[in-house]
């Protein structure tokens, strides 16, 4: 009896150990799933402007980038896409890149989103985007004049 009990206990333990491998793995954090930090950056990178015509907004963005000393590399009017870059003067070995998308919203507004990179590393400082949108605002105001 005692012997059977021992065998039973060993069997249960062995079974438990073997079953251990069958536990569903802990769900790993998805690489492409949005995180809180990403949402925060995204809201810093986007701003809505009271401009009905997205072509006007796009020209405003281009003018703002030029005022900031950026070189416009690519533009696509139907998609509202602008890519620009500039050298990190006075340091001529570093490059700053920015991609801006201009999308018309309903109710006569336009959403502008900017992604900036510094030597192919994304810039996550909200101050950078605040400064950029201040320049866009200024330039849109000048265009309207």
């Amino acid at each position, binding site marked *: 009896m005692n012997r059977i009990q021992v065998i039973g206990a060993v069997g249960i333990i062995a079974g438990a150990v073997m079953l251990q491998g069958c536990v569903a793995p802990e769900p790993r954090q998805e690489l492409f799933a949005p995180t809180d930090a990403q949402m925060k950056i995204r809201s810093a990178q986007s701003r809505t402007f009271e401009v009905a015509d997205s*072509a006007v907004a*796009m*020209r405003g963005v*281009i*003018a703002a980038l*030029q*005022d*900031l*000393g950026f*070189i*416009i*590399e*690519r*533009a*696509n*009017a*139907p998609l509202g896409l602008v890519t620009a870059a*500039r*050298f*990190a*003067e*006075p*340091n*001529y*070995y*570093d*490059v*700053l890149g920015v991609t801006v998308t201009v999308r018309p919203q309903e109710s006569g507004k336009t959403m502008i989103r900017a992604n*900036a990179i*510094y030597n192919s590393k994304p*810039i996550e*400082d909200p*101050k*950078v*985007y605040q*400064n*950029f949108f*201040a*320049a866009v605002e*200024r330039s849109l105001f000048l*265009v309207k*004049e």
Partner: protein
Amino acid sequence: MRITPPNSERSGHKVGRGRGALILTLTCGMLLGGCAERTQPAQFFALSPESSANRAMQTRLFETGNDHELLSASAASLQDLGFQIEESVREVGLLRAAKERSAREYGQYRNRFLIWLVSLGHLVIPIDLHQKIAATIVIRPTNQGDTRREVRIMFYRVIWKGDGQADRNYIPPGEQKMEMVRDPEIYQQFFAKLSKAVFLEPHSI
């Protein structure tokens, strides 16, 4: 520049030290050159005090409602200056063009030789070999009446350096240097050509 004292009775050992000091000074100078203060990214997105002066230099206004003509005349003017058009987007009035040229200059060879001489053959500075000069033009309407166009052009250069030698270390070729062109004469030249091409008088802002 004189490091060793000018009296004639010196041992070879002392000369060697003088040379060492010279090389050290030159190396330190080069290293310090790389220590130029880094600008923070936030500053690049804020308008700098010189941005309005640059804007004035790079911009001219033309009294015309014809985007198309101004754009094609700009392309023609760039072609006259030896540029190849790389990209054009009519809807936003964008042109991008570039030309590649040799960047060799006589003065650089002279400086390289002088530095080689002063460093007693220990330092061969790289010289500029090749350059790409690029231009981006944006044309946009500036008033509601659609009768005035603003043309803004920006020139910049990318320079590739040759090889060199710092004491026993070989400096490989291909180092890149980039700079905006800030010479007003180059911009004036372009706008003079453009205004001739469109038969219009350019106005400064």
